[in-house]
């Protein structure tokens, strides 16, 4: 997997993750081209596209498009399910996730992604494990927050 993009129906980028080193110029070009291509697709069309030498797999959830760039040998259907699993994880974390959750807590969405996919490869396919590691870091976050905010008397 080369990259993961989340963008809204208006083409506004909500999340971007690049798994290979690219220049800013290339990134912008990819974002522009891919959002245009994906947004132009009719609703019942197939979820796969070709962009240059990359395969693009996208899926729409409500007003948000999840979109992946794959290499030639990657499996498209599996990636489609990978996107689905990511949405499930987001859903589990935020509880009935919506676009606003991701807009306002995008760093959380990144944290979840980092627990799920590393360097373009699936790291953990067990939903429970991802949830657990998120919980652990978050609980620490909360205790830290409590600790910091605790009056010192």
């Amino acid at each position, binding site marked *: 997997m080369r990259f993961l993009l989340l963008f809204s129906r208006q083409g506004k980028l909500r999340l971007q993750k690049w798994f290979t080193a690219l220049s800013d110029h290339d990134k912008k070009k990819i974002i522009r081209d891919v959002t245009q291509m994906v947004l132009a697709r009719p609703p*019942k069309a197939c979820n*796969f596209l070709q962009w240059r030498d990359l395969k693009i797999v996208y899926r729409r959830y409500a007003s948000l498009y999840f979109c992946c760039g794959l290499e030639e040998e990657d*499996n498209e259907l599996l990636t489609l399910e*990978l996107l689905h699993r990511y949405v499930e994880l987001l859903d589990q974390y935020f509880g009935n996730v919506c676009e606003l959750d991701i807009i306002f807590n*995008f*760093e959380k969405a990144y944290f979840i992604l980092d627990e799920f996919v590393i*360097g373009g490869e699936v790291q953990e396919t067990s939903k429970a494990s991802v949830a657990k590691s998120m919980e*652990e870091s978050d609980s*620490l976050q909360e205790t*830290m927050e409590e600790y910091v905010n605790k009056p010192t008397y």
Partner: protein
Amino acid sequence: MSDVVEKTLTALPGLFDSQTGAAKITNRLKQLIKSITELTSKHEEENLMKQELSAMKEQVSSPNTTMKQMREVMVRAMYCEMLGYDASFTYIHAIKLAQQGSVLEKRVGYLAVSLFLSEGHELLLLLVNTVLKDLQSTNLIEACMALTVVAQVFPKDMIPAVLPLVEDKLSHPKEIIRRKAVLALYKFYLIAPNQVQHIHAKFRKALCDKDPGVMTSSLHIYLQLIRESPDDYKDLTGSFVAILKQVVGGKLPMDFNYHNVPAPWLQIQLLRILSLLGREDQSTSELMYEVLDESLRRAEMNHNITYAILYECVKAVYTIHPKAELLEKAARCIGNFVLSPKINLKYLGLKALTYVVQHDAKLALQHQMTIIECLDHSDFTIKRETLELLFRITNAQNVTVIVEKMLDFLRGCNDEHTVIHLVGKVAELAEKYPFHSLTGRLLQRMTLSRVHKKYISSYKINTNLLCVSFYFTSYVPIITLTFAPDNSWFIQTMNDVFSIGGDLLQQDVPNNFLRLLAEGSESKEEDDELRLYAVDSYLTVLKGDTSHLPQRFLQVMSWVLGEYSDLQECVDQREVIRLLTKLLDQRSVTSETRVWILSALTKISEGQTDLILDLSESLSYSQDTVLRQQAQELRHLSRDSQLHEWALPRGAPWDSMEVDSSLSFLDGFVSEALAAGAAPYKPPHQRQEELCEERALNLEPYSFSLPVSLSSCSITDRQSPTMLSVSSGISGNSTELSQKAGSSTVILEGVKRVWGKDGYLPQKETAATAPPVDKPSIAVQSSGQQEAAERTEPQPEPPMQNQDKQQLASSLFVGLGAQSSISLLGKSEAPPPRFRKKPRPHESSSSSGTSERSSVSSSRSSHSTTDGFLYGSLLEEEPATSISGVDHTPKSTTANGLGQNKHTDGDRRTNTSQILGSDMVIVRPNTIQDKYPSSVSSDLTALLPPDLKDLPHSDVISLTSDPSLSLASCRVFRDEALLLVIFICNCTETVIKDVAVQLTCEELQTASLRGNVVDCLEGRSTSVCHYALLMDDPHTNVSFTGTVSYQTQPGHTNTLSFSGTLSTADFIRPLVVTTEEYGKLWLSLSHDVKQNLKLLTAAGDPLRTTLNALKDALQLHVVDIIGSEGIVACRLLSGAPCLLHCRVNGAALAMWLRSPHPALPDCILYHCQRALAEH
């Protein structure tokens, strides 16, 4: 009491601060997001962002900003970057946050780093220390974060610093840490594979980890490793099969399930690994049949994820050694995919078919109706995939229809990348199927006659076809039918390719096409026919509207018209000139194309003085100097018909034209000018170097740059105004290019033919399942296919439409299942591509003279003899290798050497080094160490095998050493190669085992002759290993690198790397020739370079002194010295010669070098300069 109050009071302001502060900050992000969504124009957004960024800048640079506030700033910075605004001023603060913050802030800091900085960013170096610290932290979460960031972005050079820590984490009690460590190692493996070579054993441990998550992660590494060298991991097949069995059997914990399917990601990873392991390996494949069968059977649930697994399963079944039963099941699976109403599955089915038809073309037949439906599918992606599939099943009989379909698609397509991709494929097909065999033509006519009306009419410029038909009907009416569809089809298709592909086309498409026209085939008539079609077709095109035509197409047309328009007798040359001149006036035509057009006009201008004079007159005021010059030439040529005839001989075969690319006829002029005190010509790169020299001290050795000098470039011949000369000038031999073209066109030919016409080749019984379309006679073949089409038709459609489709089907799939019937007529499956038409001994195209060709081939042949000689002499040496004591050489190494003899050149190139024999030389320590304890290096020369001792060799220099081993090398100059002798000394008293040397050098061919693997090296002894190095192309300096691995204790492998440089001087050998031979050779060489060098005036005879100095430094052979001139000769090993002509010119030495190799003179000149400078 008062204490408490005091405490509370002091804490209060901080409390307020932090609370209100935090609230304020989180609000700021929310506010930013909200206000951005409320904005209406891009301009407003930019203004707002500008404000925001400057506020952030202020905040990060303020010393009062707490880490907590910084964390919020980082989140905002991430947001700004996501919107595409540059927040690079925060990068350094992200690193700082990761370094100094508490766990919570660290997390944001690391995230920001991984988002902001990509792999090569220099700021990442600052992160290394933080990562090191966190990796050592006892806090689980800190270690997790560090590993996560290491697995995402980490500077390549700093890997050794963290590697031991990451390795330790592999045995961490927590599985999440182990998992992340494995992934970090995977990342390291991807960016720097040799850094993690030594931990392969640990990968195995990770594979056997009790946690399925860790095991899954380790498979990423294994997939990569196995992809690179499947043979090394065959022993793991059993384990992978066992794991897959457990997974499929549902033995994993429930939380790895995805929609009730057990660990699909794991399954797919394993299936990929198995297919790589089982490829072309029957015994390994047999191990996995059962589990593949199980996977196919289990994956029955109707869910995307099961289809993903099935797809991977099918690919595996078709990749490994075939088994009929599994193939049948897999084929059924593909059927389900293709017939599925779900569009994603249909897409996957087409993809699977595309993969499978390479092995078994018949499968496409079963689904022909679906494929045809997909061709007209509304979805662009599906259409594209279908064309890809059709491209794979193209044969001589369906090529016209398939190409037409592709062109149809292209006309409606506006995606640049797709156009380039597909147009290339069309051109490939057009060139591949020339219909030269009679049966092909007959079949062609049969199929075409049916689809003729429908498809021919859709040609864009079909008047041309009619024109061709008319032309032929007037001469030989019978032949028209047979010929019209092929040559004209080819030209027509190429016309479409050029007009659709336009200027996006890859340059090799027009180049190949023109070469094809120019080089022709065995029969001149056929060639001329093709050329004639082209001329006719282009005249028709040019008579129409030309303003929209792409430049490439215009260039091709003008070249063809310039070369071949005289073949067409019924067209007035004046008409051609008029058409071309009209093009020149067009505004849209670029100046490059104008040059092409003018060259064409120059060729056909003979006898049309009035038109040409007008033209050159009008062009002589052009802004473009090149055009003005050409116009000038044109005028002179048209005035002097004799000169024209001499410069551009009509109808002369251009490959026999002699071109003196060395411009030797100017020699007199040059020497006169030099004698009169003119500065000698310096190639541009040399001027550049001298310029640099003047500016500053250059501490680096000069790097060798490609000569772009006029003298070493060959003259542009009349064939090619711009492009062709470049392509032909590069190597001067087209075999290489045509091979390349051949290899890119191969579709089915390159694939190992496991699959014959009747299924898998060795298993004849599967042939019984051949489909009903295999009819014996050619006459009933097409109707048979129609029947088959009807049979596979899922739902009967309205008859009219159906018939259309069936017709299309029969024309698309003709020849797929019915090869047997065709072969009855004695036709081979695929005709050879056009490029391989004529086996010419002198394939080189045009420009460079005959001399270069012969020398190229001679250097080739000498090369091959070199190889033979190298190994031959090795055999002779064998008995003499042992100096004292142990000789481990078993007699069988002789046979070993012989076997290697057969290895082709290509083999040796791929293997960086080869183990030829395990013989080695072991020397007892007392002989050297005791006698000369001080200078080890000079003693080492004594260790040279006796047969090498007499050869010229360099001093022994130390390469590298560590406490146990020290390495030294010595260069031995053999005529045909440079031998690099590496001495491996054991510095310890103990035995060192399994010493293996590996040497690599990109620019050179290396071959290990012996001794690069030593089982056991006694204490204080030395082993000798030889490498033969060959240089094909001169490089000023080449560097080699290598590693020695050895074991001091069993199981504990150390590696020691070394490197060194070699100069061309090491590869230069004297060329002993007589003065007469020198003279002959001098005239035949093409690439020359002239330069004034320093003359050594210290001793009596300056010329002799200088030449001797050069001779000593570079091993040149001084042929003769006559008066103030001397001639010297050398060669690059036993390959290309280089002749040097030196003349004393005042206080300088005018050096003139010639060689068949374009780069060699520059290279030798460089070394001469250095040698004289050092003197």
